[in-house]
């Protein structure tokens, strides 16, 4: 610490003088190449989205003609019509319900489990922890059929709990791994101090451990929310009643019409994608820090 404070001023002084001097042509050329490469990959990342947006603003004749990114006759008609056809609000609420409950349960159930795995001592702890991590290797497709059959027996098939419970269970390995690492990084002295003040395990967990791991919790929330929002496989084989459909299934039904209109399909895709993008942009600051924490641990 003290050496760092002594070393710092010299280093930053150097940086300041370097910045004031005009950069050499070579440095400028390097910077230009770096910027060019970065922008090139940005274009690669955005490319399908650009065409998605483009098609969503075209009418059905222009989208068939194809050929140009910027619509010659931009129209809101496609979006408006698709919005109606998609029954956006109903399916949005279904998707929101499934995603929100899944995330909530993941955070509650696995942060509690991670607290036990990280700080409490009890028999068979390591074996249980390893068991949960080993689940990471069980292929989703292997348990897909038994899950469907089991839920049929339990009367869960076709309702939202039949999606939420397997989603929560499926995100156990990664959530437990990340939260246990995060809790391991919290100094044990804090727990001791809280115990001296008379706090029980529940209070220590809720007032010391959870608040200190907020970036990791947000990261796990996002890592759970995004795939859940986009989930298609289990949802497709378990939901039958159109009233329970989530957005990906509603989007798929747009495609199953007699004639495939790409402008309608892309308008639907755009409508489905926007809520996740908003969520990500809102939480991305925490997300990056949380991942950094997870890698360091």
């Amino acid at each position, binding site marked *: 610490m003290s050496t760092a404070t002594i070393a710092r001023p010299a280093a930053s002084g150097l940086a300041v003088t370097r910045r004031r001097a005009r950069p050499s042509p070579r440095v400028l050329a390097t910077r230009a190449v*770096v910027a060019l490469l*970065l922008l090139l*990959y*940005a274009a690669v*990342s*955005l*490319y*399908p989205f650009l065409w*998605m947006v483009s098609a969503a603003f075209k009418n059905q004749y222009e989208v068939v003609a194809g050929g140009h*990114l910027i619509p010659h006759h931009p129209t809101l008609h496609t979006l408006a019509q698709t919005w109606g056809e998609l029954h956006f609000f109903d399916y949005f609420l279904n998707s929101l319900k499934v995603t929100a409950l899944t995330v909530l349960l993941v955070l509650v*159930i*696995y942060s509690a*489990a991670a*607290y*036990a*795995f990280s700080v*409490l*001592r009890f028999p068979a*702890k390591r074996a249980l922890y390893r068991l949960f991590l080993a689940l990471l*290797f*069980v*292929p*989703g*497709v*292997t*348990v*897909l*059929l*038994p*899950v469907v059959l*089991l839920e049929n027996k339990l009367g869960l098939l076709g309702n939202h709990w039949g999606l939420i*419970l*397997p989603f*929560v*269970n499926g995100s*156990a390995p990664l959530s437990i791994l990340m939260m246990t690492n995060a809790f391991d990084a919290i100094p044990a002295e804090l727990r*001791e101090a809280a115990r001296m003040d008379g706090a029980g395990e529940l209070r220590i*967990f809720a007032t010391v451990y959870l608040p200190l791991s907020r970036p990791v919790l947000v990261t796990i929330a996002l890592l759970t929310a*995004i795939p859940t*929002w*986009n*989930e*298609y*496989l289990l949802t497709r084989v378990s939901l039958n009643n159109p009233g329970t459909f989530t957005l*990906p299934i509603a*989007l798929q039904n747009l495609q199953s019409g007699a004639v495939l209109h*790409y402008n309608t*399909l*892309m308008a639907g895709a*755009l409508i*489905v*994608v926007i809520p*996740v*993008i908003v969520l990500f942009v809102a939480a*991305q600051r925490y997300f990056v820090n949380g*991942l*950094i924490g*997870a*890698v*360091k641990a």
Partner: protein
Amino acid sequence: MSAATTVQRPPRERRATRGRTRYHRSEVAWGAAFVAPAIVLFAVMGVYTIGYGVSLSFATWNGFTPNWTWVGLHNYADLLWASPTYAPVVHQAALNTLWVMIAVPILTVLVSFPLALLLNSVGRMRTVLRSVYFLPYVTAGIAVYFAWQYILEPDGAINLLLRSLGLGSLQQPQGFLGNPSTALPTLIVVTVWSSVPVSMLLYLAGLQSVDSTLIEAAQIDGAGWWRITRNVLWPLLKPITGIIVLLNLRDSLQGFQTFLIMTNGGPGNHTNVLGLEAYRLAFLSQLSPTLGLSSALGWLLFIAAVILAVITQRAMRRAT
């Protein structure tokens, strides 16, 4: 802490010297209470389904008849060599899966590591670019795969782009997914496109935790940009490369959502992968008694995943 407990409970201390770990009764109770919800959910959704799946893999069943017919290891034999209907399909799917497993991890590392290096070297644009690069992950799902389908069409945007770049000879008149020889490579590219964001972010996180004095020391020793990257950063980030390779291997082995949505295995069986084949046997085979086969294929995938994990870990340990 230990001092306080010894004073309060001497008998417990004596008993503890016999066992390896010393447990406090209240702590054990709290531990049980904290893990209970996770265990209960796992018991219902996990143990039952895994047990059911394992036993189904030793039977034939079409999902409707009341009874299973036990066939022992026949399902596994049928998949691997015995059945003239299923074994050839599985062999082709295995070959396709192998290509995906080789190409996706390598390409993902080749794209995401340099990308993270570049992104780490810029200041102002970093936050915006990071969000842009992350878009493919955030939206990975049916919506984006539809968009890919759209631009890969015969008169879609990719062909248009190739023409305007003067690479007209690379155009695919039947569409990239319609031509048997380009369909699988195209799906590999789409998969890499979806998996670069998380890998890039993991590398970026790793780069930001690299001790900057190491790099300064190397600079003082006269190491250039390439030497620093090759001899300092790449070795330091090897554990992250290991995680990325392992996660991508696992997803390539087991994942099939992109394949199901974009080609459903076609044209022919040229983009059929093992996960997709297991899904088809379970859900798309109508009344044929293939549920046991599907289950057996699923467990073969599980065994392969465990073997892969062990190999990757060994390789990483030797490398570091």
